[in-house]
Each structure stands twice: as structure tokens, then as C-alpha cells.
């Protein structure tokens, strides 16, 4: 990892921006008062924030942001790795599962992409990015099965290379594209209730209060026959990528998420405002959010 240190700013788990619980919120201090300047327009800007929420005693979510910035006559392509994992399982196995998965996937992806690119006379071809993502999540699945039996986690991992985002996804954390006032869910929730909604068996309101709304049919850690969604999409120019756990999207409605992201001067401020909004709405679950703002050109 040493050669990467100069390259990447890195936020993992307990970042300085972590909003612990509701205690801070009670003070009513506006996050706007923090010293973020308006984000520059020609670079990728990232924000990340996390909170245990108000009802849970443990934080089973994990998130990771790794971003490459390069300049010069022959700059490296835009590089970024953005991940959210939401663990589940008793006896702290949820938090172990999410953390193991994040590390395992990140390591595989770093080795498979940026380390290759940095090595000027790298002899081997890079694996196709979708296969790399698929293998990385599959390895995380095996690692969780082996190390945390009974534990599981969602995983939404976005690998940015150049102008393309390749996304690996299992479970019900989400990736959104927010652009020009539009908010679009890029991922598909692997939950029973979502599936029933897709089939027209449940309305959105029925789904919200369905007793089985937390039942996932796919998760990292399920073992054999894990099907992983992997796809590639173009990064939204002048728009945002948002990745979050259900502690955000299950509590703060999409239109409100969109407004906060569009109105905030900096993605970091948007992240903190979103966490605050989720906690103001009761904070029933752990909240993780990562926002990436892309330049218009």
C-alpha cells in the first residue's frame, strides 16, 4: 500500500466527518458553518459520512473511498473506488462481515487496476473490469462464509476508471445517479419486497410497511450460488454518484435526497446533511453515504 499513500486520500470507517449519534444534532449547529468552500468545477470531488443512527447500538455499515488524482503532461486516467456495505447477523457478525468484505474487495480491485496502471512495463493484461468486479465480490463472499459463518452483508462497489463506472452490487444498498434535477437508481435491490413491487404484487405504500421488507434474497456471505450484478455505465457529467445504505434511502425520500445533493455547495456537506436528515427522521438504522461529484467536461 505504501506507494499509494502519496496518491490517495482515504477515508475508512471512522473518518473525521463521522457524525456519531443524535447528540450533535441536538445542538442545532449548522453543518454549513464548517469551512468547506464551494467545490471546484474541473475535478472529481468526493464526500462521505456515516452514523450509527439513533436506534442501533452497533454500527454494522462499512464504507470506503479511495480516489486518485493525477496531473501532468501524461496524467493517469480518473480513478476512484467507492463502496458501501451493510452487514447483518447476530453477535457482531454483521459488522465483521461488512468490514471483511470492504477490505477484500478493495484489495482485489486495487491490485487488478491501479497497480497495473502504475506499473509502466506491466506485462500482463488487465482482466476485463466486469470480471474483476465479479471475482472481487465472489471472493468476499467466500471470505465471509469462511470467517463469519452466519454473517452477511450487502455490497455496492463502484470502480471509476476514466469516464466509465463499473458497478458490482449485491443486496439492498443503492447507487444513484443524480443529474440535472433527475435522480435515478442504478442498482436493483435484492429484496423480496422489491421483487414483489417489480411484479406489481405490492404497491409502494404496501411495500413500506411489509413485515418482510428486510428480507434479502442475495447477500455477500450466503455461500454457494451467489449471483452478482455487475454493469458498466458512463459517469454523469456535471452530476453526482451517490451510494448509500438503507439507513438513508429507507428513511429519507428520493426527492429530498436529490434536493440536498443538488443544493449543497460541496459533496461533503451534502453527505452530512443527508445523515442529519436520516437521524431527524428517527435514525432507525445505520446510515452510510458516499457522494461523488463529476466535472461537466
Amino acid at each position, binding site marked *: 500500500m505504501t506507494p499509494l499513500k502519496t496518491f490517495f486520500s482515504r477515508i475508512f470507517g471512522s473518518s473525521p466527518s463521522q457524525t456519531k449519534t443524535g447528540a450533535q444534532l441536538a445542538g442545532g449547529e449548522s453543518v454549513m458553518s464548517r469551512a468547506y468552500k464551494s467545490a471546484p468545477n474541473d475535478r472529481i470531488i468526493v464526500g462521505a459520512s456515516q452514523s450509527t443512527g439513533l*436506534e*442501533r447500538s452497533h454500527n*454494522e455499515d462499512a464504507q470506503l473511498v479511495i480516489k486518485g488524482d493525477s496531473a501532468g503532461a501524461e496524467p493517469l*486516467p480518473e480513478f476512484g473506488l467507492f463502496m458501501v456495505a*451493510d452487514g*447483518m*447477523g*447476530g453477535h457482531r*457478525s*454483521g459488522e465483521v462481515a461488512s468490514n471483511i468484505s470492504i477490505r477484500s474487495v478493495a484489495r482485489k480491485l486495487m491490485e487488478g487496476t491501479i497497480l497495473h496502471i502504475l506499473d509502466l512495463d506491466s506485462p500482463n*493484461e*488487465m*482482466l*476485463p*473490469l*466486469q*470480471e474483476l468486479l465479479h471475482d472481487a465480490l465472489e471472493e468476499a463472499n467466500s471470505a465471509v462464509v469462511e470467517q463469519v459463518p*452466519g*454473517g*452477511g452483508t450487502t455490497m455496492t462497489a463502484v470502480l471509476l*476508471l*476514466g*469516464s*466509465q463506472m*463499473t458497478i458490482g452490487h449485491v443486496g*439492498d444498498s443503492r447507487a444513484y445517479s443524480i443529474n440535472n434535477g433527475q435522480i435515478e437508481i442504478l442498482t436493483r435491490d*435484492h429484496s*423480496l*419486497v422489491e*421483487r*414483489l413491487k417489480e*411484479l*406489481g*404484487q*405490492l404497491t409502494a405504500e*404496501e411495500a413500506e410497511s*411489509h*413485515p*418482510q421488507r*428486510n*428480507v*434479502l*434474497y*442475495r*447477500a455477500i*456471505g*450466503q455461500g*454457494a*450460488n451467489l*449471483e452478482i*450484478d*455487475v*454493469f*458498466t*455505465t*458512463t459517469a454523469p457529467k456535471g452530476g453526482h454518484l451517490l451510494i448509500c445504505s438503507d439507513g438513508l434511502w429507507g428513511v429519507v425520500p428520493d426527492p429530498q435526497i436529490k434536493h440536498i445533493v443538488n443544493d449543497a455547495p460541496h459533496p461533503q456537506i451534502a453527505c452530512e446533511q443527508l445523515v442529519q436528515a436520516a437521524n431527524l427522521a428517527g435514525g*432507525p438504522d445505520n446510515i452510510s453515504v458516499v457522494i461523488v461529484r463529476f466535472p461537466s467536461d
Partner: protein
Amino acid sequence: MPRTTRQLDENVQGESESLDRLQPGITLEDRYLILGMLGAGGMSSVYKGRDLHFPNVTKLVAIKEMVNLIADQSMHEMIVKNFEREADLLATLSHPATPAIYDNFSHKKRSYLVMEFIDGDDLEAILAESTDFLPEERVIGWAIELCDVLSYLHNIQPEPIIFRDIKPSNIMIDHHNHVRLIDFGIARNFQPGEKGTMIGTEGYSPPEQYRGEASPAGDVYALGATLHHLLTKRDPRVEAPFSFAERPARSINPLISPEIEAVISTALQYDPKDRYPSAMIMKEAMISAAKRTGLLSAPSVAAVIAQSDKIEEIWSFKCEDEIRGSPLVYEDTVYVGCYDNNLYALDKQTGEFQWKYATEGGITGKPAAEDGVIFIGSEDGRLYALTANRGSLVWTYYAEGPIRSSPTLSEGHIFIGSDDRRLHVVNQMNGRRAWRVEANDAIWSTPFVQDELVYFGCESGDFYCYNFKGELKWRKKAKRGITSSAIIVDDIVYYGSRDWTMYAIDSENGWQIWRFRMRGATISSPSFADGLLCIGCGDNNIYCVDAKHAREIWRYETDHQVTGSPVAHDGSIYCGSVDGSVYCLDHKTGRLRWRFHSDGPITGTPMIANNVLYIGSTDHKMYALIA
């Protein structure tokens, strides 16, 4: 709220142990001697026992124990009452596939049901033990008996009994190979509500059951799901819920007859109204399907093709040799090169001959046109510019080898490859070379130009991206030649190779995003529309692949190699095959809409203009058909 993970295996060891299982040797009600445990799940366990009222013989019984953990007194009592009522109901049942009920009693937190002991294996165990697919006729036999018992239950008066939980583990096969239903869901009242995020779903239950609806149609669905599992060995509990339609039984187990698959698919419809209205009707359908398959051994596929040969040609025009290349429609004329060395110009409405221009070699490419000038390469090594209206020569450009590539026009220049291993860039006005770059082998593919970059593959398997200064931006190597011409959609380059693969490459930097494997080499070029890529292959198939996920959506098998390229138009895919036919397929499903047969292999790519399809064949003819 604690989050729990439920294992797919329902025998959660920890839970049942904490419930103090009954030890062998214990006697219940001074009558039932516990011999051992048969199974456990959730809040209930089943024991093997012996009825001591028959001291001289060994009368075995199955004893189901349910633990009532509801603390609220009135709720607790209600559950016990419900249990007793259901036990009474079960005791009145009389069908060869339902177990006899002997007794029931409750003790503090526990309620018991004493029933017939069935010696045999449940279907889950039978599935687990079989290494191969279960024989179809065996499964059909069980299916018919299951329909029969469900029909019996659904017709009980005054209220039908809905089984609600048909699945392999609830169906026993006794020693006479007869079906016996066990676990009448009587334990359901005892299950506490599940909370927290969990993995795993019921898998066999119909969608409406999650809204709390239980109906005979729900049992029909669960039976369909069970049969699907038995015949395919694919466990629905680990698949996306209600996704049976995405994996028809025959796609997994081709030994299943289409008739039986159809019965299962009907039972598995999302909407209860689309399923069999009763288990009895499903039974009849199953029996008649079984009879039909018994009588009929030849597959009956030809049905779809029947209406297809009605496609009529608007006109056809005969050249003197094979047409291997692809036509271009420009203004009112169709231009097509022929292996008789001529480029033909035909009236697009009537097929009437306008003019022809003789080169000194065969023509395999597709012409390009702009500002009243037609451009075409020939195996004589020359690139020709001809006036569109009369076919007069404007200029000639000489490459150093045959030209089989088709010209691409961009910003006043023509981009074209040659067997001389070079990509030539020629000024459209005067035919002078602007620049050229070297490749590792002959270039037969058609270059793609976008944003001052040119992309092309060559026969060595190298794929190149050059800028307009002739500087290499990136290069990618396939294991075999790339004759397929690339397309770019949303900054991703797609092309096929003879190495049996279709590639998706980031157009900016040459990174591979995905690769899609086929069963043969391809020289066909992909088409793109509505997020779907289509490509022909030497394995006789036309493939349709989701561009984002690299997933096969469908494939259509023709009778020979598909070397031409598909064209997407208005919800259809049009493609020729070496079997001599042009196919029109539904873009979303790959279903055949029509097929037009010519008398020779078709290797070119159709062109569609104003709903008319133009295609040449090696039977020497150029055809115009209604698309």
C-alpha cells in the same frame, strides 16, 4: 432491533436445542414413547414414537410438537384453540395422500399432534441424493397424485383447505412410490413474526401469499415451483424470487418435454388468474401432456415457421456472380458490389438497372456515399470514386494490396483498410492520400471514426485506436483475427473476433470492460439498439446481449454459420445466414417473425430504408423485401 440471519437450511441447530428436545425414553400422556427425533424447524419438532396402547405390536407414530412462546395470555389461548380446531379438521380427512391423525393434546407451552408414521423419504432428501436429473415420468407420476390430493383438499366443505406450503420437504414418497403430504402448516400459528434483515426466501410461495392471500391458486403455484425444482435441480430458495419465467425448465434440463414444461409454466404464472383455475384442471393438463409425450417422440418445433415463407419480394435483380458484400441505399438508388467485379446501381423502387462500373477485382465491401459521389474498394487494390447518378469515374486511389474493407467517411476523408496491412486515409475531393498507418496484418474490417479518432481491427487480432495525426492512442490484442467491424456507443467500443469472443472496450483508453464468449468464431459486426447488442457467429447463432451487463438475452440458431451482420430496425433484428435465409426476429425475445429464403448463402448485411429491406445473396441476386 437485532438483525438475524436465517440459514437456508431450516434445521437451525441452535434454536431447536434451546427448546429442550424430548429425549428418547420419555413417555407422553402415558401412551407415546419417544424413540428419537425425525426433524426440527422453527418452533416445532417431529419425533418418532411408539403407541403403548398396542403393547403386543410395534405401532409407530409421528409426534409433532409445537412450542407456544407467546407471552400474552389471551393470544396464547387463542393459538391453542386454533390448533385444536385444525387438528379436528385434519382428523376428518380421508385421502390416500393425507396422513391419518390419531390424537392431539396440549401441555403448558407445548401442543402435540399424533399422526401416522410414514416410512419413506421426503422429496428434498430424494433430490439431495440424486446425482442426475430425476426421470421425468417419475416426477409426472408424483405430480398427478399431488394435483389429486390438492384437489381433494380444495373441495372440502364448507371451507376449502389451503395447504399453503407445498415444497419438496413437505412431500414424502412412501415405499410404494406414492405421495404423502406431511406438515399441514398447523405449526404456522406458532411461528413468531420474523424481524430484521435476513437472507433467504420461501422460494416456492406465490407472490400473492406475501399480501396474506391464500387460495387454491397459490397451492397450484407452489406445486409448479416444486415440480420445477424436481426437474431442474435448481433450488428456488437461492434464486431471485418469482424468476421461474427467466429460467424455463427446458433451458436447464433439455430432457424435459415441451408439453410438461408448458404445464409447469402455466402453474407458475404471476397472476393467479393466468394459472390453472383448479388443481383438478392442472391434473388433467398434466395427464394429457404426459400422454402426448408418450405418443410423440419427434420434437414439434416447425409450427412457428409456417407463416414465414409468405414474405414476398418487391423485386430482385440478377448479377453475373455472387453478391458477397452489402448494399447501400443512397437517394433513389441501391448500390451494391458484386463478385463479377461490377458495382451496380439499381432503382430502389423497381430494381431497374441504372448503371454498372467494372473494376478489375471482386467487390466485397459496402459502398459509401456523400455529395453525389460513391466510394468503393475492390480486390484489384483500388479505391474508386464514382458519380452517383451515372457511375463516371472521379478518381482512383491505389493501395498496395486488395481492398476488402468498406470505406468510412469522416470530415472530408475516406478511411479504408487493405491487405497491404495499412489503414489508408484519402482525401474525398481529389483521391490523394492524407496519411496512413501500419497494422500487423490485413485489414478487412471497416474503420469506425469518432471525435478525431479512428478505430479498426485487423487479421492478426490487433485492434487499434489512432488519432488524426496518425499517433497510436491504444492497442488491444485478441487471440485471433478481427474481421468484425467495431461500433462505438456511449464511449464503449464493441467488436467480435475469431477467438469466439465479443469485446467491450473503453474507447478512451482501451481497457476491457467485459468479454462475451460464444461457441464459435465471429466475423460479424455487432448492431446496437435499445441497450441490446446483436452479433452473428460461426456457431450458427445470432446472439443478443445486454450491453450493460454482458448478459445473453437470447440466441437464435440458424441452419448454418452467420457471417453477415445483424441490423436493428423498429423492434426487429434482420440478419442473413449462410443457410441462405434472411431472418427477421423480435428484438426483445429473439422469436422468429419471418424468414426469407434465397438460393445461396447470404454473407452480407441487409440495409433497410423506408421499411424496405435490401440484401444480396451468393445466388447472384439482389433482393428488395418488405421489412
